[in-house]
């Protein structure tokens, strides 16, 4: 069965560039790009939601089916 990928939305007007989502992602899916968080390798995402749970700024959403 093919793995369905989530959609990861980063709301730049809320993101404060704290690195929390990037550092604690267990699969190294995210990176900092300039000031903001950004998706580097969506394929590796296991939809654990850790990034969304820990973002203090409501700036990252992991949208799954």
């Amino acid at each position: 069965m093919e793995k369905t990928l989530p959609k990861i939305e980063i709301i730049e007007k809320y993101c404060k560039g704290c690195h929390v989502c990037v550092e604690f992602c267990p699969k190294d899916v995210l990176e900092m790009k300039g000031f903001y968080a950004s998706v580097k390798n969506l394929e590796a995402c296991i939809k654990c939601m850790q990034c969304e749970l820990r973002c203090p700024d409501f700036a990252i959403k992991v949208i799954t089916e």
Partner: protein
Amino acid sequence: MAFDYDKWIRPGKLPHIWCPGCGHGIVMKGLIRAFETLQLKKENTALVSGIGCASRLPGYIDCCTLHTAHGRAAAFATGVKMAKPEMDVILVGGDGDGTAIGGNHFIHACRRNINMTYIIINNYIYGMTGGQFSPCTPTGHKASTTPYGNPDPGFDIAKLAIGAGATFVARGTAYHANQIDKLIVEAIQHKGFSVVEILDDCPTTYGRRNKYKSVIEMMNRLKEVAVPVKAAEKMSAEQLEGKVLTGILYKEVKPDYTSEYAKVIERAQAAK
């Protein structure tokens, strides 16, 4: 599925004022998830705070909110609960607000066992006013007012709450984000005064002075010091040195204040 926080946030209020990496936002998200789990009604939910960065939280939440005077959340919240015992009353604030200027209100709310939930966000410092030490700043740590190290021992908020009579006491951390809502749910469901301490970072005024190079270092410290109560049972005193217990630390069933007060009203009316 991504969690829909918007339902509980006042339109146009984000981004919030907290600094990059400040865990207060993580606690706010946990609180919203707890409200949603319990299906609380906005018109029946009162969120009450004092003053401080943590105490700004109710301003973002779309329910009945009361932003009061420094340290006085418990006094105002007690008034709300006495007037409207059917309301879910939740207090939120910082370590400075709750254990320094508001320490007396805190212990008496515990003693009365009034059916409310108090979320106390402990970042070990007065964040808002520039990093003065609070009663929770650990010994030896630096604050703007203790540049050579704090000589005072810090309060253990959970022990203080238990000693003063709170009947539900729990502790979590901003790092352990997915536990926050679960602790708050249990606290709100408990009938009596519930205290939930959430250990937090303040990278801006505490981290900087105490040689934490980044928000990530501060989050990692929370990760390292926390030991769930169950795991602690199997650990030796040496292994527990410098650790902090997390989870539900204390729970007891006791008469709550508004129920007892209703009986007083009944007796007084019968005596007429």
